[in-house]
């Protein structure tokens, strides 16, 4: 009993059973830290990704150009003086020669030194051929005159001017020679060579030369496809949702449709590409690489997204609205189209924009239906061959040249800006029109 006595004696000091508070508190702290670390990792990668794209890509919006007083010499363009009778003369004339001569004169290089003049000529993009040809064709009277023209420098010179070429590397192992760098410096000092805003990035089509490659054709293709998706997926999606949400009886068939829609939303996008290839191209004989096929495939892909969003929006309209309409004698159809649908439209619109954004960034199915094509001309109808923005990015990402990495990043920036605008628009719509009942 002595034990008991001592217990009673010490009762004033409470016994602290060791329940591991310290350990548990530490575990709690650790757990919290894991959570913070996880979020930090996610955000770190987001920043790393955006940093990669923007640091590589912002320079793509400027392109090195040279201002040259080009003498449209008749002896070079039309040595035989046959242009009145033969159209091919003006089409096939040696236009790069004109630009080369102008630059040679500007740099004070001896025109007789063949290898040097060739090196000078190599600083000017071959795109000068079409540029000068178009000038002459639109106005043949400039032959024989001297015009001041901004011509593009080659991608190598452009990279060097942007400081992306390591000049410490031995001359033989880089694409710009020391002499060319010297000329470049001279031109820059005279203010003749400048970095100008790169409108070509937005207007040019596919090209094997980085400086004349742009996303013009890809943007047109993407716009066509977005229009097709909008015109087809929105009405069909809304109609399907209205039926499923407001009219469909609860039976096997509607259950099947519902399971189906949920599944379609999770089917890998590349499978839709196979569907497009087998049905639209092989069976229905629609043209390959055309935006119409891309639009149809993306429509099928976007439908589940739009249906799911629309159904949520319809469900959010309170039943009292429906009861009120029916009570005043509206038919069910009138109730839906006059009251429920207008109230649900902000939600539907938001869902549609998000679906479109998803479709805009989709690449894999478009590759399968042949949109990985070298398309240099603008498509005039949705039946013409075209590419899409993400596919253009894919094609450029496969090119080895440094200048194409810059272009790729630039194209990604354009794509991300489009997506950001669409998403911000969706958020704005939601904030502006969302109603809490």
């Amino acid at each position: 009993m002595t034990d008991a006595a001592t217990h009673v004696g010490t009762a004033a000091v409470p016994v602290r059973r060791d329940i591991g508070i310290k350990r548990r508190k530490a575990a709690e702290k650790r757990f919290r830290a894991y959570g913070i670390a996880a979020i930090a990792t996610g955000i770190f990668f987001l920043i790393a990704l955006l940093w990669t794209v923007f640091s590589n890509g912002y320079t793509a919006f400027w392109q090195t150009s040279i201002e040259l007083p080009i003498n449209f010499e008749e002896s070079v363009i039309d040595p035989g003086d046959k242009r009145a009778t033969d159209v091919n003369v003006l089409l096939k004339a040696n236009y790069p020669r004109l630009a080369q001569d102008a630059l040679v004169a500007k740099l004070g290089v001896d025109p007789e030194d063949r290898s040097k003049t060739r090196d000078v000529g190599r600083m000017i993009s071959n795109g000068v051929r079409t540029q000068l040809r178009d000038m002459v064709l639109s106005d043949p009277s400039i032959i024989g005159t001297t015009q001041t023209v901004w011509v593009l420098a080659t991608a190598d010179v452009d990279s060097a001017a942007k400081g992306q070429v390591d000049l410490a590397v031995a001359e033989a192992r880089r694409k710009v020679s020391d002499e060319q760098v010297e000329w470049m410096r001279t031109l820059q000092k005279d203010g003749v060579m400048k970095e100008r805003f790169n409108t070509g990035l937005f207007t040019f089509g596919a090209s094997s030369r980085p400086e004349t490659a742009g996303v013009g054709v890809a943007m047109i293709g993407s716009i066509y496809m977005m229009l097709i998706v909008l015109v087809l997926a929105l009405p069909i999606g809304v109609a399907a949702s209205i039926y499923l949400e407001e009219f469909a009886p609860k039976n096997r068939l509607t259950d099947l449709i519902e399971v189906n829609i949920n599944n379609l939303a999770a089917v890998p996008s590349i499978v839709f590409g196979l569907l497009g290839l087998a049905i639209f191209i092989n069976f229905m004989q629609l043209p390959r690489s055309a935006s119409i096929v891309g639009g149809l495939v993306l429509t099928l892909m976007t439908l589940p997204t739009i249906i799911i969003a629309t159904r949520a929006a319809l469900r959010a309209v309170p039943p009292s609205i429906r009861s009120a309409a029916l009570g005043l004698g509206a038919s069910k159809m009138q109730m839906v189209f006059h009251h429920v649908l207008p109230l649900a439209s902000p939600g539907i619109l938001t869902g549609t924009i998000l679906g479109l954004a998803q479709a805009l960034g989709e690449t894999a199915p478009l590759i399968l239906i042949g949109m990985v094509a070298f398309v240099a001309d603008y498509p005039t109808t949705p039946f013409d061959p075209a590419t899409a923005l993400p596919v253009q990015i894919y094609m450029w990402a496969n090119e080895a040249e440094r200048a194409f990495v810059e272009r790729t990043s630039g194209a990604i920036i354009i794509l991300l800006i489009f997506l950001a605008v669409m998403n911000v628009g969706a958020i704005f719509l939601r904030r502006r029109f969302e109603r809490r009942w």
Partner: protein
Amino acid sequence: MSFSIVLLIVVAIGAVAFFLGRQRAAGQQRSSSEKPHSRVHYHGWWAFLLTVLPALAFLVVWSIGSNAWIESSTVANLPPQTDESAVASRGLALGMVKGLADGIRKLEAAGPTEIPMTFEALRPLLAERGVALASDTQDYMIPMAIELNAAMATAAWIGGLAALVLALTGAYFAIAGVKVRARARNNVERIVLGMLMAASTIAILTTVGIVFSMLFETLQFFHSVSLSNFFFGTVWDPRFAAADSSGAEGQFGLIPLLAGTLYIAFVAMLFAVPIGLMAAIYMAEYATPRVRSIVKPMLEVLAGIPTIVYGFFALVTVGPFLRDISTAIAGFTFIQAQSVLTAGLVMGIMLIPFVSSLSDDIITAVPRAMRDGSLGLGATKSETVRRVILPAALPGIVGALLLTASRAIGETMIVVLAAGVAANLTINPFEAMTTITVKIVNQLTGDLEFTSPQTLVAFALGMTLFVLTLGMNVFALYIVRKYREQYE
């Protein structure tokens, strides 16, 4: 008469019928003492629908039917020398005739010209109009093409006229049928309901289309390649060049591709699941509303970035970074720039927001009472999460993880750019492996021939992928749905 012109005229007649029907209904309702059944515009719409729908349906059926009929009669007229060769070459001959017909139509559209009856003379003429002909087009096909054109034109005329007659009849009956007590609204609503129903079946049609298109090509593939070669083969070597030579049949082993697919998906999940889950737990249980409102959208941005951008990120930044790090550590490059690790890592980044937003939903769906009970008994927050919330949410989380895994398996652009194209069978994550999706893309870029196994194998691969992901999705959706019901 072309299809679109007829369509335009039919719709125009429909518009006129709309106004006439409405006007007539308005007149009757004004002069009658009876209570009208439908408002006037419903009469107008009924007239429009009755005008346009039958004509439209007829046009579609007619153009498909007449095309098929003309084609079959053209094929029947092909001279017997092509009879002996296989069906494919008859199809080819039909294609040539159609190409010719197309070119001749363009030629005639430009102005009345004499059509030369030999291929040599015709070819440059057509080339001028931008029509390229198959080089082995035969002379006897030219009159056939002209005949084809004539038949097509006749069919289009007959069909167009019949459609117009149908439209006018429909309009007449609709307008004549306008009565004060006529149930125009019910009629219109019934048709609208039919349209809504048709729209909702498109989802089913898509699935059916996916299954059938792939099934058909897959069966064709297994005609020339045995099942065991595909499913149990360990070598992937489709041999594009030797498509016709019988001795060198390509090898279409699925195993290395499947292994690569699952391996990369596994690495991605290994990376994404802990991060995504912890992020979700932190945001659901610890974060203040302010932090949540900033962090959640940022992670969602990650989900909105197209996968091609992730692929580029892997190609330009992550791959070279891992390669350089391995060189710096070991002195030699033991991590390839294109490797399982690169692809898995970048795919993991892509999956973080999926895991976190799906698990976030599930964790917040666990009832408040369970949380309060645990905290009231003296458990810390982390103990509550680990011992109460996670076990309660487990089925839902498993479903979410399955959905994520199916996404990882079907992902294409990241692996195309980051995983490499070599079909290795290895367990070293630092080497390149390839996936099903990469090979689908590889087999279908470039020239396609829908008869060669090299092309058709892509559909067999796609079918495998579809079945794999479908199974996972159905199972996952089942679990998620069941779990949701548990707490509702």
